[in-house]
């Protein structure tokens, strides 16, 4: 498996390295700590699933990596390097070259991501011309090529279409094709299948995995649905209230979750054994990120809470790279 733990120890080899990322929003009601100390290490070609309930800060993490946080939001601290390049030192033009060139992003709602008044060809050609000194014909040829790669039949006809003439699944394939245009080293896919039919969802996940493996593109797949990344990701990071509360290989996370929140997520996934019976839902709601109380943010909803949980849980990192933030992990502290 790519990026297993000993290899990851050498941070120099990592494609993306994020440490202590904090992105806060200064709102009238107070400071919303949407991302509050996130660490991500990603090897070249690795697929990471970033999982958590809605509002846990997944999208804001993605936008922070691309420098796309708009006021009142701000990256207040943390370090980010991509391919050894310090992202926090970039100027606007540096960010622009990074976006869509080195790191591409796919958004959640395909009905909103394409500009309704511009033809697909214009929207694809500009994506290439923003990064490469190519003429229209060259960019068009590349657009055609990536459309074929993502499995779009009669690409010339699609290129002449406007977004509203295409289905949701088709539009999302086009967004994926746009992400692939400049052969980025990393694609951040922010819940790209959430708005789609289940059947199309499966197809897209399958194709995306194939494409990334073929080209060697790393992928951060953001989702609220653990089942989606179970068959896709090399590793999974579970996010809760602006923090990554558990991290491990997909197998470890699914088979042997340590954090009670991860377990809650797994139990709420419908499976063959639970079909027909009522699903176990995590009680309560995602807390407001405004004025989070002291201690573990999951405390109010946690069946395993102990007295120590009134204090901030430290990040326990096991020798194999497995990490969790919990005072009373499932399976007890390992020897």
């Amino acid at each position, binding site marked *: 498996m790519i990026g297993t733990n000993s290899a990851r120890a050498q941070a120099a080899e990592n494609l993306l390295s994020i440490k202590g990322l904090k992105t806060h929003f200064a709102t009238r009601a107070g400071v919303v700590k949407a991302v509050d100390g996130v660490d991500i290490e990603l090897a070249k070609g690795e697929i990471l699933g970033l999982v958590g309930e809605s509002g846990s800060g997944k999208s804001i993490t993605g936008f922070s990596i691309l420098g796309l946080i708009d006021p009142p939001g701000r990256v207040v601290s943390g370090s980010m390097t991509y391919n050894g390049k310090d992202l926090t030192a970039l100027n606007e033009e540096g960010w*622009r070259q990074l976006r869509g*060139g080195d790191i591409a992003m796919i958004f959640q709602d395909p009905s909103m991501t394409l*500009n309704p008044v511009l033809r697909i060809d214009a929207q694809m050609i500009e994506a290439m011309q923003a990064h490469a000194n190519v003429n229209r014909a060259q960019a068009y040829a590349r657009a055609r090529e990536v459309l074929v790669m993502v499995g779009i039949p009669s690409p010339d006809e699609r290129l002449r279409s406007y977004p509203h003439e295409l289905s949701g699944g088709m539009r999302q394939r086009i967004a994926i094709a746009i992400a692939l245009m400049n052969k980025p080293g990393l694609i951040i896919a922010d819940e790209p299948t959430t708005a789609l039919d289940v059947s199309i969802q499966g197809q897209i996940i399958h194709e995306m995995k194939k494409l990334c493996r073929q080209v060697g593109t790393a992928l951060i797949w953001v989702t609220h649905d653990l089942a989606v990344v179970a068959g896709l990701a090399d590793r999974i990071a579970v996010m809760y209230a602006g923090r990554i509360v558990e991290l491990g290989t997909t197998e470890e996370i699914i088979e042997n979750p340590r954090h009670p929140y991860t377990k809650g997520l797994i139990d709420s996934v419908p499976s063959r054994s639970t079909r027909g019976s009522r699903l176990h839902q995590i009680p309560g709601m995602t807390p407001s990120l405004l004025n989070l109380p002291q201690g573990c943010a999951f405390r109010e909803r946690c069946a395993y809470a102990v007295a120590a949980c009134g204090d901030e849980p430290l990040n326990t990192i096991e020798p194999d790279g497995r990490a969790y933030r919990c005072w009373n992990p499932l399976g007890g502290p390992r020897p």
Partner: protein
Amino acid sequence: MLLFIINRLIQAAGAVVVMSMLVFIGLYLIGDPTAMLVSPEANDLERAAVRQAFGLDQPIWMQYLTFVGNAARGDFGRSFLTGQPAMQLILERMPATIEMVVVAIGFAVLVGVPLGMLAGLRPKAASSKAVMTVSILGFSLPTFWIGLMLIMFFSVYLGLLPSSGRGSTVSVGGLSLSVLTPDGWRHLILPALTLGLAKAALIIRVTRAATREVLPMDYIKFARAKGVRPRRVVGVHLLRNILIPIVTVTGLEFGQAVAFAVVTETVFAWPGMGKLLIDSIIILDRPVVVAYLVLMVFFLIMLNLVVDILYMAIDPTAREKVRD
């Protein structure tokens, strides 16, 4: 598309008929134009003769039918005052009005759209706040007052620009135009500015509101995530989307300005249609008023058609609707 245009023309014809009826009845109720057609000393016999000559002794429906019959042949009657054909009288004045309005609206768009976008892109900047404050003044101050102030400053105080009239004109294909001579331009600037400032203020506000609405859209963020240069994000992705409300307002304002340019035309003694309309209403010159309103209804509907065609050029979903 052709069907759509034909459909619109039929609508236009219907509206013209209804409008002419309403105006006919309205003017009939307001008063009897006989008084202005005969001398004050005329006796009843003479009055009756005049009434008969102009068909004013007929019942109103009969007068209307006669009017429709003539109008169908392009004859809208003659002005009671000058005896000239009413339509010709109006059409002679039309280039002056349209010319001034085109310059005014052109100015308003060229100034209003960039300033509105600026204010929308950086709502917190001091410059944006200044623009918005001035724009409030722009459309709350009465036009005539702005006109008088401009005259005071540029004509009376600086002595730079003339305060009235149209200056020298050049005839192009039967239309006399001021925009083609330097002297014409000097005369045109102040009235066009007076009319244009209020329109610019409105366009600034509409553009700003549209910009604020489109900016948070996913497709703008996606364009940025693609690495598209800021200039293109604003100039293509944003602009193409805010054009729809801008075109709507500009079209409406253009129509308004042409049909009711009377205040500006009066302040600057600009020999346009608005002035003619007011004069004709005052003296109950029915043929001119009716012809004017018929012409305006037709003009506004044509303008609407142009706006709809522009929509289709801008918005692909509008094109779709027409096709269905």
